[in-house]
């Protein structure tokens, strides 16, 4: 199979306009004859569902949360990028495009990224029109801040709750359509499988998390906006329920999984404190605007931070990357933190932490300004650690945060399964090997508000779909498979809890497929993962009943998929024999420790095809063509 990205021809700047003109439309009266299933109601899913319903399509949404308002997107803190150039500091669509391609270490598609930068401008207008209360200056205009990987201020924010406000904006548009009867909302329902009829995705099978009932739902098109898989590392900044199940089961049905090894480790999270830890809390990257990162120059210096004199501190990011300093991109900041900790200069209880210090900023700007900018983040930090960051520097350490990889999609956001579209973090499309801060919210909303409403119409208008409903034998078959899977999980009755397997897997992934990777470790991981999986299917214990609300069963069902998916991730990391963006292979670095990219052999997307549990999947390649930016060494010095 050749991967056709369907990138429109013509100059970069005109591709999207031209494509929008060339795509087929569906006339307003006919739209109500179609039904679209939207799995996921985060930023991508909620914005898409609302926009499609406004156009007249019938939409059904699905979420495992008790309300669309609680999707993981709600936790995004720092902000959303847009090339508005309100600050007059030289920003432009071209610059946002360039920064994103460069930030992604030249592993994304130019055309997709350019479109993203183009529509970013509309997103802010749309959100303001919905009543999203972005931060403003005294003159009444919108305020901006800067984020890692950029030298302009293009990030819009709503205190430290930007994701919440954007999601509530999209949710309000969605509930409006629910009230109007155009959207049917299914909550506490988890997708178990996609159903494919004559080669096209025509529905899904879900499990009702309250009653345990397995149900079928048909549609004319299926969209997955099911988020990322960062929880494959067990500890991450993701919400507890985030999982790979929807994307992975689509992969098992023939959708290719692209670049799974591109996983982002966020540099500023609260370090691990104990074994009981269930998640790692992100301290927004925006803190790096005013906080300075350092460790003691001496190894094993156990003095309290305020007693370490200025000249004995190593502000290592400022030292190594003078032009970006503390705002160096995430992968670089994360790796630098690991480096100084591996050298034995780390702080925190475990020795795996670095300081993020605000004392200089408080002196310069006053406590009040700092409080205005970051008040809620400081409070959160104190609540979790018991330390007051106004008085003592924060301790931070990198943690799994975001996944650039995802289901492969073409320019229209369609996967390799016709009719199956993938939006938001669940797809692989725009961030290459590393995502810049404040660009995930932008991408989720771009996909949902401005891309999918057009491309779905084109899909529906170009394909003559047969009529199907839930009685089709393919639905019955998928229901049976889902029931079998649940029964299997329930019937093992071994000794170990679902979480214990998740933890065990997470440790292997973090140690061997985490921030620094090498062939030896990756090969070991590829041997160890199947063993954990085997043990899982022999020794798992799920208590309670399957026809009831059962949190152990929900967890086991998700862990089962992580245990298979982890292997695909490791294979991808092993076969990408270069370092690029967040994928750092220790064998491929320059003498100064910078990542060594190999454009000759790896300027492509790796898209994996399922071949059976435990079998090595088939690696396909989509070559990346760069006509508008020059492939350069990504320097932030």
């Amino acid at each position, binding site marked *: 199979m050749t991967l056709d990205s369907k990138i429109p021809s013509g100059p970069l700047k005109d591709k999207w306009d031209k494509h929008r003109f060339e795509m087929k439309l569906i006339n307003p009266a006919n739209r109500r004859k179609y039904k679209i299933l939207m799995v996921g109601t985060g930023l991508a899913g909620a*914005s898409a569902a609302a*926009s499609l319903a*406004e156009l007249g399509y019938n939409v059904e949404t699905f979420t495992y*949360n*008790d*309300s*669309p*308002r*609680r999707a*993981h997107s*709600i*936790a995004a803190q720092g902000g959303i990028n847009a090339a*508005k150039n*309100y600050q007059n500091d030289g920003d432009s669509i071209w610059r946002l495009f360039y920064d994103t391609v460069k930030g992604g270490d030249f592993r994304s598609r130019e055309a997709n990224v350019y479109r993203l930068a183009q529509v970013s401008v509309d997103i*802010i*207008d*749309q959100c*303001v*029109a*919905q*009543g999203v*209360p*972005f*931060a*403003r*200056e*005294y003159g*009444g*205009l919108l305020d901006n801040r800067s984020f890692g990987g950029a030298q302009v201020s293009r990030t819009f924010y*709503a*205190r430290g709750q930007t*994701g*919440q*406000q954007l999601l509530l904006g999209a*949710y*309000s*548009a969605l*509930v*409006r359509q629910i009230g109007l009867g155009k959207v049917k*909302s299914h*909550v506490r329902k988890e997708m178990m499988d996609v159903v494919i009829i004559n080669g096209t995705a025509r529905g899904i099978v879900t499990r009702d998390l*309250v009653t345990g009932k397995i149900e079928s739902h048909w549609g004319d098109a299926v969209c997955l906006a099911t988020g990322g898989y960062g929880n494959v590392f067990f500890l991450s900044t993701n919400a*507890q329920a985030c999982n790979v199940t929807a994307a992975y089961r689509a992969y098992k049905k023939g959708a290719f999984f692209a670049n799974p090894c591109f996983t982002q480790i966020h540099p500023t999270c609260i370090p691990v404190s*104990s074994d*009981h*830890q*269930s998640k790692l*809390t992100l301290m927004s990257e925006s803190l790096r605007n005013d906080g300075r990162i350092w460790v003691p120059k001496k190894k094993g210096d156990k003095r309290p931070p305020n007693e370490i004199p200025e000249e004995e501190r190593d502000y290592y990011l400022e030292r190594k990357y003078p032009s970006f300093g503390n705002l160096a991109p995430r992968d670089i900041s994360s790796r630098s933190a690991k480096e100084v900790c591996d050298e034995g200069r780390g702080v925190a209880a475990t020795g795996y932490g670095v300081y993020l210090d605000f004392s200089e900023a408080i002196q310069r700007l006053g406590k009040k300004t700092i409080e205005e900018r970051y008040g809620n983040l400081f409070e*959160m930090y104190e*609540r979790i650690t*018991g330390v007051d960051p106004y008085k003592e520097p924060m301790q931070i350490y990198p943690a799994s945060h975001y996944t650039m990889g995802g289901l492969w999609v073409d320019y229209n956001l369609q996967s390799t399964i016709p009719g199956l579209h993938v939006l938001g973090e669940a797809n692989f499309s725009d961030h290459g090997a590393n995502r810049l801060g404040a660009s995930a919210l932008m991408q989720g909303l771009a996909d949902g508000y401005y891309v999918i*409403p057009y491309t779905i119409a084109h899909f529906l208008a170009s394909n003559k779909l047969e009529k199907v409903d839930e009685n089709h034998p393919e639905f019955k078959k998928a229901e049976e498979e889902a029931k079998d899977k649940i029964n299997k999980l329930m019937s093992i009755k071994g000794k170990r809890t679902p*979480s214990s397997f998740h933890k065990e897997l997470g440790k292997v992934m973090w140690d061997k497929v985490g921030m620094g990777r090498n062939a030896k470790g990756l090969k070991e991981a590829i041997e160890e993962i199947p063993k954990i999986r085997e043990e899982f299917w022999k020794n798992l*214990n799920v*208590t*309670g*009943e399957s026809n*009831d*609300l059962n949190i*152990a069963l929900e967890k086991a069902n998700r862990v089962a998929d992580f245990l298979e998916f982890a292997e695909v991730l490791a294979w991808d990391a092993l076969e990408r024999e270069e370092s690029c963006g967040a994928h750092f292979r220790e064998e491929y670095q320059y003498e100064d420790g910078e990542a060594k990219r190999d454009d000759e052999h790896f300027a492509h997307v790796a898209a994996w095809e399922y071949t059976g549990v435990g079998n090595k999947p088939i690696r396909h390649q989509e070559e990346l063509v760069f006509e508008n930016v020059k492939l350069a060494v990504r320097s932030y010095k």
Partner: protein
Amino acid sequence: MKLTLHIWRQKNAQSKGHFEKFQMNDVSEDMSFLEMLDLLNERLISEGKDAIAFDHDCREGICGACSLTINGTPHGPEAATTTCQLHMRKFKDGDTLYIEPFRSRAFPVIKDLIVDRSAFDRIMAAGGFVSVRTGQPQDANAIPISKEKADLAMDAAACIGCGACVASCPNGAAMLFVSAKISQFAMLPQGQPERKRRALNMVNQMDKEGFGACTNHYECEAVCPKKISVRFIAQMNRDYLKARILKEKD
């Protein structure tokens, strides 16, 4: 530290619930409250028992999923803190804790500590939005909004929809939740065209859902993890009255 827990167990909406007692001997101060429950659940599953069901997701105090009434107070003893952000260092060795679901007529129990808060979504669907279609609206800076107004709108918008206000109110009123949304839009130019309709429709839906009336106990503000102010209730009442009078006139 050691704790004695009395946790509400209830199989489903139809059955009657009861407290079940658990002894915890290995709780560490750094754990969050939910991590303490995770630990108990790991033990229960290992003993072949059904885990205690509770809602949670972000564990960062922002999604509004976690609930729990701890010793009679929604989200427990620490002010302005959700249950997921509450840490065990706030408790003492030997404490006895009663852990219950958020109780209210409009929030039926689904299982154990999980309640059904979908009434909030229905109130939102009745008017918690600005009717604007996705498209190419005017430039975001076309209408300046003073910083004070924008900040106040943000104060209201900070509501996480957890329902602690309802659980704390002797009347089971949802006024704080509803007024926060109404006030957010009432303070912004974008919210003006539908301001009256919104107040009428949301308040009517709130009444239909079986939430009680406000008799100024202000318990809601006291337990709100996001410190939403009861001033917004006054704002809502003004908008609602105005809308009703004008409606009666037409």
